């Protein structure tokens, strides 16, 4: 990837352990299941939401929290596209690339973002503000093209509209 390696994302403890406040929220999740391990994906998503990504230290923390090995955590993290084992920008943009979006302006929207942000698929801008990813079907085909910015859905987008959304995402 041509883009520079970004600085680890937001959060004072980026790459490390989550805050005490988050841990207090996550602890009751474990009791929802007969085995704490089942809280794996919800816990990883919540930790990632706070720290930006799931580095080796963070994965080790999750392993300890759930009483499993770091390898078991890594097996899961490395499987899912929405769990990041590498640093991402402050804002993550997912553009749907699957057929219904592709046929209705999604391809052009993605190309527009590549040239506007100066990155390729998966890349992060030099200033670390944006990571641009392609996503598979986001289940909003009737309002194509569809984009997630920080996991919130935006529909029927034109290049002008997404420019405004990016300006708003400081």
């Amino acid at each position, binding site marked *: 990837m041509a883009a520079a390696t970004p600085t680890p994302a937001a959060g004072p403890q980026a790459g490390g352990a989550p805050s005490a406040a988050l841990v207090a929220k996550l602890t009751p999740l474990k009791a929802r299941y007969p085995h704490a391990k089942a809280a794996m994906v919800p816990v990883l998503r919540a930790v990632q939401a706070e720290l930006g990504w799931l580095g080796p230290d963070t994965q080790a923390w999750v392993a300890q929290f759930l009483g499993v090995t770091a390898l078991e955590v890594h097996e899961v993290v490395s499987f899912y596209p*929405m769990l990041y084992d590498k640093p991402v920008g402050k804002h993550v943009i997912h553009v749907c690339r699957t057929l219904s979006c592709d046929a209705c302006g999604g391809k052009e929207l993605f190309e527009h973002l590549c040239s506007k942000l100066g990155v390729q698929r998966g890349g992060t801008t030099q200033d670390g503000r944006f990571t641009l990813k392609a996503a*598979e079907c986001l*289940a909003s085909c009737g309002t194509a093209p569809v984009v997630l910015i920080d*996991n919130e*859905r935006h529909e029927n987008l034109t290049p002008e509209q997404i420019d405004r959304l990016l300006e708003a995402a400081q």
Partner: protein
Amino acid sequence: MIRETKLLSARFGQPQSWALEGFRKDGGYETWLKVLKDKRPPAELVAEVKASGLKGRGGAGFSTGTKWSFIPKGTTKPVYLCVNGDESEPGTFKDRQILELDPHQLLEGVGLTCYAIGAHTAYLYLRCEFALGLRRLQAALDEAYKAGLFGKNIQGSGFDLEVHTHIGAGAYICGEETSLLNSIEGVRPYPRNKPPFPAVEGLFGCPTIINNVETIANIPHILKRGAAWHAALGNKEDPGSRLWCVSGHVKRRGVWEIETGFRLAELIDSPDFCGGMRPGRKLKAVIPGGSSSRVLLPDEVAVATMDAPGMKQVNSSLGSAGIIVLDDSTDMVDAVLNLMRFYAHESCGQCTPCREGTPWVVKVLERIMSGHGRAEDLDLLLDLADNMEGRTVCALADGACWPLVSIVQKFRAEFLAKIRAPARAAAPAGAGA
């Protein structure tokens, strides 16, 4: 004449349609409370759903009541319900409407289903991209608990039910029911071999029913109005009212609720629905049931009715009711390449035919697209499909083969024209046969 039947979508347009107050005003949770109060024998509810003819709305179309009846009688293990809200079949966006616009309808169905199958714990599995759906569902669940509709000894009935939301992390495969179980258990979500079927040995090794969101949303309506009422909706062999998702090159895209048995051409052409193709464009192809169904040509669209027997007649399937309409501006080689990239990306990697086959198909299609196609490539694509279909643990590879083979066969001339055209771009690496 095609017309809407608003059962599942009846409340979608109301202000705050997701809140408990309006739901209860419209009679919501009355069926749930009545079942609890009357202490209905669970077997009666299973029989009612079986007799209603309801088929699963997730794609496979299996009889819901029959699935429920597979829970072993007198099991001493806990029984679980998992609701599949991993909606990610390309072209499908109906479950999201229920989650965002009427989550209490789903929750009432969850209560009734758990009661019928003897489950005291339910997990509602949502893909993490459904941020709004999750917020609305979680808020609805909190409201329902507060109102004493779930929890311990609900309304003094002696029936306990804990309902939890659970999110995924962006993998299509997790919509496969045994993959979903592994996803919840916190291991790599590889699909499991069947048997044992989940109804016998599912989540945490216990009897488990996995049903799609729309399937569960039907349950309160069926148990309120009766099996005979439901069985009389739409096509007799495949009854009910479904949420149909239309995307692609029509004037109006969206979700409409219609009883099965209508004509696909009418949905596309009617000014009350899609309003026809975009100006100056003609219909070229329709993928009728989510991307994992066989493509239809205009003459097949003209005669196709939207029910299981009607789709069988044109050798396709209703799947998840995701209708993708493509006009004559579409390059079908590019379109199938788009879909095959999806399957290659989403293949979990467990089975060799799918893990190796789907990217290989992509490479061959890329070669054809770049103008470097070979005369034998069409046979190679069909051969690859032959070596994937039916040779894997789950149906993902089958789902890739159906659109692939049908598009190669029905648009053969388009592939051949590209193969015969002079090379236009540098050959992509690694596409060797």
